[in-house]
């Protein structure tokens, strides 16, 4: 494997890390399998592409893109809590509806970013690879420090307890419905941020860019957990770092599959198989422990 090849996988891994953190938040912290992800990732990308081509400042675009994801998450949260339906169904409903919304935002199915001023040019680093690395690393560091702080605050403790023991947190005065809505909003805001980064990194937004993306987030979380099995129990910071490393490892695995001559048309089935393999391995490990 060449350095270039690894660098690409690393940058992608860091770009998708925010999405993996979003999946970690909804699935592991809140115990909600949320598949709004596919739609909110594209929503982040769609908003980014349309605003950048209209020459908005990349930092303004960032805020709008994250906000779009948060609205998507809030919608799923409202469906989930108001109508008391399964999280998976709530997520599918929002995700399906978002396809039309995203298409309406974009106006067409693909928007290339040509001659736009994006977040990578904003760094004023002329070396493109250098700029990619700086932006991705800063983004991930900021996310981790912010999340690590929030999860240790009083509000964060209430968040973590909500997915853990709903009866208990309610008896401690926490409105669990509102907490779940907030959690899904943050999770999908993180996902949309990934859409924002990846759109600029790959230089276009596509209506299908989010297709099956929740699986890669899930895979990243699980690879991270498999690699950091012991440590993640000690402190929440290890869980967060595990997710980032999982995201990078996931991209390296995919890149390796492609470099071995895999037909890109089979990428989704390979992705699914990899995730299935990880799930299978981790659950069979658990069975032995019991």
């Amino acid at each position, binding site marked *: 494997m060449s350095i270039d090849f690894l660098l690409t996988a690393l940058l992608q891994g860091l770009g998708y890390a925010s999405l993996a953190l979003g999946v970690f938040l909804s699935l592991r912290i809140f115990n909600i399998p949320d598949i709004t992800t596919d739609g909110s990732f594209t929503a982040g990308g769609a908003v980014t592409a349309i605003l950048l081509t209209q020459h908005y400042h990349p930092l303004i675009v960032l805020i709008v893109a994250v906000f779009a994801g948060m609205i998507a998450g809030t919608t799923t949260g409202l469906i989930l809590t108001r109508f008391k339906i399964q999280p998976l169904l709530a997520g599918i409903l929002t995700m399906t509806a978002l396809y039309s919304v995203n298409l309406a935002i974009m106006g067409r199915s693909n928007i290339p970013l040509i001659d736009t001023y994006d977040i990578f040019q904003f760094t004023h680093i002329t070396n493109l690879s250098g700029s990619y690395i700086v932006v991705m690393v800063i983004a991930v560091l900021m996310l981790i420090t912010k999340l690590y702080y929030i999860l240790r605050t*009083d*509000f964060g403790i*209430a968040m*973590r*307890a909500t997915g*853990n023991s709903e009866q*208990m947190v309610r008896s401690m005065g926490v409105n669990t419905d509102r907490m779940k809505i907030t959690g899904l909003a943050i999770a999908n805001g993180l996902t949309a941020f990934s859409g924002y980064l990846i759109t600029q990194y790959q230089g276009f937004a596509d209506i299908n860019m989010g297709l099956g993306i929740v699986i890669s987030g899930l895979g990243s979380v699980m690879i991270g957990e498999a690699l950091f099995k012991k440590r993640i129990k000690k402190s929440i910071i290890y869980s967060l770092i595990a997710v980032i490393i999982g995201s990078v490892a996931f991209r390296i695995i995919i890149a390796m599959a492609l470099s071995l001559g895999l037909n890109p048309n089979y990428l989704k089935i390979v992705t699914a198989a990899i995730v299935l393999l990880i799930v299978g391995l981790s659950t069979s490990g658990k069975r032995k422990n019991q």
Partner: protein
Amino acid sequence: MIALKNIDVVFNSGTASELKALNDVSLVLKEKEFTVVIGSNGSGKSTLLNVIAGTVTPENGSVSIDEKDITRKEDYERSVFISRIFQNPLAGTAPELSIVDNFRLASLRTRKKGFTIGTDKKFEERVKEKVSFLKLGLENNIYKPMGSLSGGQRQALTLVMGIMDDCKIMLLDEPTAALDPRSARLVMEKAEEIISTNQLTALLVTHNLKDALHYGERLLMMQEGKIARDLNADSKSKTSFEDVALWFD
């Protein structure tokens, strides 16, 4: 003071399995009074507790605490007044959180959970001091996840968590039903101690008739959704285990 007025609770209303769990129940629980409720399965004793806790909303009637009508308040809004101990000894604590984090949440039961970190050295010392009251040796392990402790330990900790924040009322729903005899005794002794030293208004639902006679001042017996017997401290002390056992025939 907790006051229930003409409470009706109907489960599965309008279906073949309709069940009148509480039928026109009125009850006043005086401040600092420890009341025990007994009754056979389906008599409505847990429903009575849940109506006060806010997890069951009555069809008719009103619930008030200190003259304040709380009938329409959600359970999480009532936590301002009420600490709860559950039948499931694991339900009162969050397993993946450490003892300290669990206690932090409990210390904010009546307040807002904000964006500041509250688990500092000073707070940890407070937790150690509170936990050492149980004499279980847990004060040296306050970073352990709750999930690594036994049901008895967790139920005992839930009791202490109940008084981490201002507490006037404690509701205990069969707190020892799922515990082994030794843990059950520990939990009941500590509960009694906490209730009396903090002068709490307490309501204990139990199937254990010995506990019902041994603990508390007032004794209620529920039957088919109504309060069948209501004994004050005086008449309760004159009641024997055999008398109570006969009530169930």
